[in-house]
């Protein structure tokens, strides 16, 4: 199920909220959790019911292994449980996400003809697998205790964060799930959650999905783009991805808050970053945190010398690329980020002397250009687009109007060009110049009537965009 749909907004969410809080005075916390788990599985299986069993198996195996790790009296048994749990998760992800990528590359490399399988990527598998590996690690390090089975299942399946994060650690939420006062309706929390949910809804349904028109047209045939259209298409995707995913995260945070659960922040004005290092502290923050725990620390972190630290940093970004998708475009994208991260580590002091505005500009330029790889279907397509952007045969601003092409209604070329440039300017203003981001607005929220009216306006506009919204980009990862 997708947040920005009629079925979720007008049916699923109100029904779950009413039932969850409606029964709070008559039943125990466990029954309420059971209801929330059931609702989360309905949410998960709404489009592809066939994979509900997969998430249930994944949760069961992880819970058993985590219990084994915790209760083992012998070190060997503890290690076996831990390694089995981690391997199980890696194999699950490996099969569903990377099997075809692996076989395809074997075929190319050795001229073999192994048959590719038709595997549908289970929704959110990268998210709940990472979440569970991180959990196993923390149990293995005795930082966590295995909770009751219902609390654990809810920790993984809680629908606001189930399919696209934020990637939640047990310590973020477990005590909140177990806190008895959180199971009763709290108007203040509900209103504050509603506020950021609407901001996220607007970001996704109105902004990101409008930008999607431009980026889809641009990336459909990169070879046909003019210099101007290539730059604007790349820019459109850069903004689209941010509004899409940060919108989703805002909605998740808002939904969590409605249920009295504080989920961690995932985005904080990433395009205002002065470096790639800072960028990853503001962009998909919970992924960065997970990779730190799952990759960087096990590889030795910064404890094994300068060169090894640089290698570990690069490895984190390489894995980040692979995590995003089983394709060379993602691997290259992650590796480029890794190289720049290592470069910043080496030239940290020199870079500090560069004026902030210059650093922000070049960081954004790098992020935006690297996203061309992220969005393109093949490396070749990405190179064609990047060549048009950086070493064009002719500097031309023709065909910008084509970015706004749609099969439903065609406006005159001039109007379409103004539309494309106008939208990108407005979006740029909100990304770079608007003093507060959605998290600031959420944190400083006061239930003023004018904010209520503004929220209603944004909600109404978002609702009329529901009929065209696409799936969240990060559902694919």
């Amino acid at each position, binding site marked *: 199920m997708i947040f920005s749909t009629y079925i979720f907004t007008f049916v699923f969410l109100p029904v779950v909220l009413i039932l969850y809080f409606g029964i709070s005075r008559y039943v125990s916390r466990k029954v309420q959790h059971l209801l929330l788990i059931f609702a989360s599985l309905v949410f998960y299986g709404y489009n592809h019911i066939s994979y509900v069993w997969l998430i249930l198996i994944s949760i069961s195996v992880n819970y058993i292994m985590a219990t084994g790790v915790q209760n083992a009296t012998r070190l060997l048994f503890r290690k076996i449980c831990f390694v089995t749990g981690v391997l199980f998760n890696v194999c699950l992800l490996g099969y569903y996400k990377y099997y075809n990528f692996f076989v395809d590359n074997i075929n190319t490399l050795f001229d073999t003809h192994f048959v590719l399988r038709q595997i549908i990527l289970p929704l959110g598998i990268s998210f709940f697998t990472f979440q569970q590996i991180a959990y196993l690690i923390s149990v293995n390090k005795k930082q966590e205790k295995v909770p009751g089975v219902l609390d654990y299942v809810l920790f993984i399946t809680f629908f606001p964060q189930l399919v696209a994060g934020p990637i939640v650690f047990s310590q973020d939420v477990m005590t909140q799930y177990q806190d008895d006062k959180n199971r009763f309706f709290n108007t203040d929390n509900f209103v504050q959650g509603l506020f950021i949910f609407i901001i996220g809804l607007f970001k996704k349904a109105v902004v990101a999905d409008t930008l999607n028109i431009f980026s889809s047209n641009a990336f459909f045939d990169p070879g046909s783009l003019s210099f101007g259209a290539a730059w604007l298409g790349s820019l459109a995707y850069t903004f689209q991805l941010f509004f899409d995913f940060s919108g989703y995260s805002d909605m998740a945070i808002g939904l969590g808050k409605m249920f009295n659960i504080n989920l961690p922040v995932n985005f904080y004005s990433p395009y205002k970053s002065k470096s790639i290092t800072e960028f990853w502290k503001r962009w998909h923050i919970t992924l960065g945190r997970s990779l730190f725990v799952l990759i960087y620390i096990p590889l030795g972190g910064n404890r094994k010398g300068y060169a090894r630290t640089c290698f570990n940093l690069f490895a984190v970004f390489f894995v980040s690329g692979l995590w995003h998708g089983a394709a060379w475009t993602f691997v290259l994208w992650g590796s480029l980020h890794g190289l720049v991260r290592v470069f910043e580590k080496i030239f940290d002091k020199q870079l500090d002397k560069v004026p902030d505005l210059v650093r922000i500009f070049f960081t954004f330029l790098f992020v935006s250009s690297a996203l061309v790889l992220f969005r393109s279907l093949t490396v070749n397509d990405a190179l064609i687009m990047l060549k048009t952007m950086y070493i064009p045969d002719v500097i031309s601003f023709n065909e910008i109007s084509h970015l706004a092409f749609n099969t439903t209604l065609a406006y005159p070329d001039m109007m379409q060009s103004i539309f494309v440039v106008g939208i990108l300017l407005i979006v740029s203003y909100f990304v770079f110049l608007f003093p507060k981001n959605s998290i600031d607005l959420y944190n400083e929220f006061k*239930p003023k009537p004018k904010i*209520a*009216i503004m929220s209603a306006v944004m909600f109404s506009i978002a609702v*009329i965009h529901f009929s065209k919204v696409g799936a969240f980009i990060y559902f694919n990862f």
Partner: protein
Amino acid sequence: MDISGKKYTSKGFLTVFSISAVTLLFIIGLTCYVVDPFLQFRVDPKSRYILNPRFVNGGLAKNYEYNTALIGSSMVQSFDISTLRNTYQGMKPVKLSSGGMNLAEMELLYSIVQEKGVKNIIMNVDMPFFNQAGFVSRYPGYLYEDGFMNKLQYLYSYEAQIQYIPANLGLELYFKIKDGNLPDVYKMKTNIDQIGTESYAKTYSAEFVKNYYLAGNSVLYQHVEHMEERMDNSLTSFIAKLEIDKHKDVDYTFMFPSYSALYWYHTRKHDYYSQFLGFAAKFIRMVEKYDNVRVVSFLDRNEITDLNYYGDVTHFSPALGDTIMTNMFNPKYEINSSNVDAMTQRVDSLVDAFIEKNKDWLPK
């Protein structure tokens, strides 16, 4: 964070939000209801709306005042349906066409027309669409099916609210400023009689069509393998779904349009000429048992050899469209099992003559 100030309360916020949201959504819905860009509640022939067939065909079929419906693909899109009205006294026709209309979409429109109780139905038989398997309607369902939820979806649909209402209101204003003195393209795009026509963007000339074809632009690709079986199955299923025997009071006219000789040449080159040309005879065999069915063929009109009547390999000009409409009920063009072979032979001769005359440029 302090959200429990004395002046502002969360309950107050919820109240203001709820009232504002309901009011706004009501106004938004009301605007769509009043403007009605996809004709879901009423059709005012005088209003100047941009008419995209995919979005308005459903509303037109349900709410327009007509007693004759012409349903068909892009082959009839260049028709100015007023020709039928002017030719046949008392006829109130409507054209329900869209580019690439497949059989599922034809059946959907037919069901609406049937429900409305229309007694005179003309259906264009565009053969390439009988060679498709597994086709489904690509029309937005909420504009074609009844029900409260569909109407609600329409009132708050992106296409209506964000795309067409601003465009239609802007166009109305433009018409007023220009006092109706507008370029033909706008007149055609907003004229119900010419709905879907692209004649303003077409060049009807033999030279253009020749260059167009030689540049590699041909026709919808046809799968030749198992074509005959596929077309037979489509035909059987299509006729069965019309349930002609249940609607004995309805007059059906099935029309074979005038494909260009260049088109027939292309089918010969790609080995499906005989399947297509023989399809008319199969069609007749399938429907001749019904007393209320006529089949008319314009396949063998002499104009098919003159590419000046065409805008591309298949689509003919409004001029030829007018001729076809004028003769829609002319017995001379009716075909049945006794004259269908003669008709196909005439097509054959015309195509042969065309190939002979144009052999210097037709690809070998």
